[in-house]
């Protein structure tokens, strides 16, 4: 049997003994799931790559403690989501600092139209990421599996070891919360009066 055919439990057991090719096989198997999660929350820049690397480093450090209660993919998705949300928080802090410095210096550059569209998309991603961060973890895990990972309801239920009905109710609540972030924010009185 090759490493590619071995199941996660066997690879984890071998990686625990210091078998580097076994750990590498785990990385190669789950990199795309980790990438989807990191990029859904952070976009496709270097930050997502860094979060992906950190997620696997954290897995490597906790191999001995991994009991296999959740599937490895669920465990990785949880780590990646938490790391990505932390990265988002630091990004927001940096952005706020930058904005303060920029405003003080009065050097706001003109944005090109393409850049503006990109900015709007990034803002939307940030809003959604924030909404995902605010979901209770059970709902967040379902949302990450079903929406981000695009797994079916049945696969999500299997991965999270939940009944289908529970997946559907958590998904429905999570989806409704995310949907609300797509509502345009209510107009402020200033905006109303300028119309």
């Amino acid at each position, binding site marked *: 049997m090759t490493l590619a055919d071995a199941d996660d439990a066997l690879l984890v057991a071998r990686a625990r003994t210091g078998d580097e090719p076994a750990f590498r096989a785990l*990385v190669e198997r789950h990199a*795309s799931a980790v*990438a989807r999660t990191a990029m*859904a929350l952070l976009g496709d820049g270097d930050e997502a790559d860094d979060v992906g690397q950190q997620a696997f480093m954290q897995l490597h450090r906790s191999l001995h403690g991994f009991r296999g209660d959740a599937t490895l993919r669920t465990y990785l998705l949880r780590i990646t989501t938490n790391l990505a949300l932390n990265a988002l928080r630091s990004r927001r802090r940096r952005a706020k600092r930058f904005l303060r410095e920029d405003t003080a210096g009065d050097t706001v550059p003109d944005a090109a139209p393409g850049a503006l569209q990109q900015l709007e998309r990034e803002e939307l*991603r940030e809003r959604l990421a924030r909404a995902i961060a605010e979901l209770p973890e059970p709902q967040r895990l379902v949302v990450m599996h079903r929406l981000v990972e695009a797994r079916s309801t049945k696969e999500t239920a299997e991965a999270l070891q939940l009944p289908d009905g529970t997946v559907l109710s958590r998904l429905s609540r999570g989806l409704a919360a995310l949907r609300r972030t797509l509502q345009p924010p209510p107009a402020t009185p200033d905006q109303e009066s300028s119309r």
Partner: protein
Amino acid sequence: MTDEREPEALLELLDLHDGAVPAAAAAALRERLAADAVLQEEQARLTVLLAVVRPPAATFAPGFADRVQARIAAEAGMTATLWRQFPRLAAAAALVIVTLGAGNAVYTRDAASSFVEAVFGLTPVTYETVLADDGADATIAASAEEAS
């Protein structure tokens, strides 16, 4: 402004988007969609949401596994170096402490201080020195007097 549809509608639209609805049910849902502006708006919103959370080319740049292994190796190397250096650092720190302690014991010990106080460079503390150094207020002085 739109009214919100029941959550089941969102789930149905999601399944439709993912091709997870059987053909007959999908056709019925499409018919409903064609006749329902609110449902159409929900679908548009869901499409935007999925476009953002499901990036089309969500893969890491080539060499990702190499980068992970390089960082793990670097981290392991750093930990190993720290462990290797630890006995030497600990011995050096102990030597510094012993030298300073011996210096204190030899050069700064006076008759009033014990050997331990001298090693750690502690000056003997009495009520008098405390009151004299800190200019303590009358309350403390009074209570000291009372105690004596």
